[in-house]
């Protein structure tokens, strides 16, 4: 699946997007964040306040308990500040 990052999450991760292949035991968004954090300091920094990070699966807002099975694109970003 593709992970995409926006705003300061993007800056901290150091990438706009990347292909990721989490193992099968990573079932939901919160677990995916924990898995990413274990991958390196840049992820640990981006997700240091994991509860504040918003996620979208295939361009729809989801909560951290949303299952990621079948997702093509998972986005992580700070709370929105448009408008």
């Amino acid at each position, binding site marked *: 699946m593709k992970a*995409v990052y*926006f*705003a*300061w999450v*993007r800056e901290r991760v150091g990438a706009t997007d990347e292909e990721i292949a989490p193992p099968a035991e990573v079932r939901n968004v919160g677990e995916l964040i924990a898995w990413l954090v274990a991958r390196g300091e840049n992820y640990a920094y981006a997700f240091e306040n994991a509860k504040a990070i918003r996620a*979208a699966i295939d*361009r*729809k*807002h989801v909560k951290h308990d949303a299952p990621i099975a079948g997702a093509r694109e998972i*986005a992580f*970003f*700070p*709370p*929105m*500040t*448009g*408008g």
Partner: protein
Amino acid sequence: MRVQAAPFDAAAEAAALTAGRTDVGAVVTFVGLCRDEGGTLAALELEHYPGMAEEEISRVMAQALERWPLTGATAIHRHGKIAPGEPIVLVVTVSAHRAAAFAAAEFLMDYLKTRAPFWKKEHRRDGTSGDWVAAKAEDDAAAGRWDRAT
């Protein structure tokens, strides 16, 4: 509904919603502008999530059209670098009666603020790197009032 870098013509968008109609009694137009925050800001840079931004605004528009008896509505959100005094966002709502037009316009703005995937980064006049604008609790509260009502 459009997401674009270019400026928009609020009056033309409002006119398009009322042209040839004689059943419209109320047109509410909201324009959100970039402020310079006491002269400290050179520009705002708006990052967005292409694709999701359009889809999310369309979902919010559909909710407004379902909830209020509107004869039309438009929303345009810009992205990219925007200078103080320039427009960022436009919402136009059109209805037979003013209460529906006002409520729908406020709803759209509250939801755009808290659900549309846009993020503002400051560019400061003194050349120092600006911060990402923090989300405001008051915006969440403003959006939340539409859940409680009806």
